[in-house]
């Protein structure tokens, strides 16, 4: 069963996924993690991805994020075809740099860089001048309540603080598509809410599409649409 896509021209889409299937392993260890998923995410739209553990949410997210190539299916991001099955149609690293932002369950900060530098590095590898990168990193972190933690190394930060740094890093380059895998799991209700507000704001102001994997069924009101996965199959609901 496929998610019904809103009718929109390709250039207004943050992502278009057609018939995506991901199979792990082969023979009797074969796992079909995602089965024939098709959906689109419009620019400015925030989508929730729900589903039980092991249903294929992370697999789908990383396939769309160009980290974990699908077995078959096509992916277009920002109107540009990028994957045809497992085959890349563009330079994936450059494409990730320019168009994608990631937040994972774990913060995955670089341990020898401070909070600010962890955000700054994402900007600098995208050719933002160091001074500007620094300012933008500070602004973002301040917005996420870490203005007084700029020079702390990751180990000095709590799990929730680390996660906020990771969110700042994902948003630093103003990506057209943000993929977040349970970004608020480590945050309390108020901060979780604030992160979701930030996502809304980013979606609105930067015309970005955002997919958020979440387990929190109470907070679904902030999403424009909800996708549900079960055993590798994707269904969509209106929020």
């Amino acid at each position: 069963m496929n998610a019904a896509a809103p009718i929109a021209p390709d250039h207004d889409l943050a992502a278009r996924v057609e018939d995506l299937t991901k199979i792990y392993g082969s023979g009797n260890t074969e796992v079909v993690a995602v089965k024939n998923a098709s959906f689109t995410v419009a620019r400015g739209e925030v989508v929730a991805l729900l589903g039980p553990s092991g249903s294929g949410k992370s697999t789908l997210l990383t396939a769309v994020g160009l980290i974990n190539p699908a077995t078959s299916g096509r992916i277009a991001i920002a109107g540009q075809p990028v994957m045809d099955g497992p085959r890349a149609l563009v330079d994936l690293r450059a494409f990730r740099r320019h168009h994608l932002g990631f937040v994972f369950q774990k913060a995955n900060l670089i341990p020898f860089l401070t909070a600010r530098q962890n955000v700054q590095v994402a900007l600098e590898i995208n050719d933002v001048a160091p001074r500007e990168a620094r300012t933008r990193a500070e602004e973002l972190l301040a917005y996420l309540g870490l203005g007084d933690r700029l020079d702390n190394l990751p180990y000095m930060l709590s799990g929730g603080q680390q996660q906020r740094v990771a969110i700042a890093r994902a948003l630093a380059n103003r990506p057209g598509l943000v993929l977040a895998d349970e970004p608020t799991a480590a945050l309390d209700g108020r901060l979780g809410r604030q992160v979701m507000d930030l996502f809304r704001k980013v979606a609105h102001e930067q015309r970005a599409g955002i997919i958020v994997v979440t387990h929190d069924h109470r907070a679904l009101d902030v999403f424009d649409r909800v996708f549900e996965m079960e055993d590798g199959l994707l269904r969509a609901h209106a929020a």
Partner: protein
Amino acid sequence: MNLAVEDIRHNVGRFALTATGIGLLLMLVLGMGGIYGGLVHEATLLIDRLDADLWVVQHATRGPFAEISRVPASLAPRLEAVPGVASARRFVFHTVQRERAGAPWRFSVMGLDWPGDRGEALPLIAGRPLAQARFEFIADRALGLPLGEQVRLGKDTYTVVGLTRGMTSSSGDPMTFFSLRDAQAVQFDLPGEALRLERAARQARTAAVDLGRQQPALLERAGRPAAAIPVLGPPTVSAVLITVAPGTDVAALAKTIGGWPDVSVYTRGEQRDLLLLGNVDRARRQLGLFRAILVFVSAIIMALIIYTLTLDKAHDIAMLKLIGARNRVIVGLILQQALVLGAVGSGIASVLGQWIFPVFPRLVLVTGTDRVLLAGIVLVISVAASGLGIWKALRIQPNIVLA
């Protein structure tokens, strides 16, 4: 922001320890070169100091530093008669190993051709040149004798009157300078019993021939000191050193004297080359080989260290790739760390060497060229060593972040 620097900054202790280890290795590389430099310096020091234009040695030998050379002391006046020879000095050189305070005690003895040469040309740091023909000597301070110290050698006692610095023989032993006569006395010292036996043998030989039987005076002479017997002549010297008169064609003079059937002649340069090719060449190759192995070992150790540092950062490198970092960012991170390690390591090697080399038993002479060479070697091995780490880093998949 520089990732390599940030990583080092936040792991200073670990990097310092690693750099120190590499520094110690590089110090050995530097030291090997320095030992060779010292070897060459010491080997040629005496030849350069003696400042002779020509070396006249026993026929068909390579001179006193290479093998035993003996020429009669009367060779000097013979040579002085040759046109173009300004002066001819007798040269006595040998090495003595005795025991002092229970430890072996080695030094080289050189005879100064008293009274023409009293050691004024030596680099004295204390005391004075020889003032009398006998029982005084000048010693290098490496021998550890203070001025005024009295030393018994053979049957006589000699007093230290002057000290030099850095005067060693080609074998690295400290030099001592005696008058020629004293040098020979030390060299040819025989115990009383040996002298008595020698004289008795001489007497017996004389008695066994008709000349001895017919000439009782001759028989009696044979039992006296050798110096008193005209036919036995004075003891030999090792070589005769010639200083040529200004404006003389040294090569032509060498050819003339070289034509004499009882001697061989070498210019200073030839004597120098003989020394370097003989004594030093094998040591040079030995040290060179050892140095090459050390460089190789350093490179391997460095490669392993860089590789380990890279493995430790595998997750971070994967994350960098995931957010889209170019390969050049990742290669730069590893290469720069290798270069920093190499640079800090060679700095440590240099400083540590300045500290440690002077206490080595033999001269370690590190020149500016050696330091430049080390910098070159470090550059090459740093780059080569980071190869393994870079190879690994470029193969890291971004999706290991998800694991």
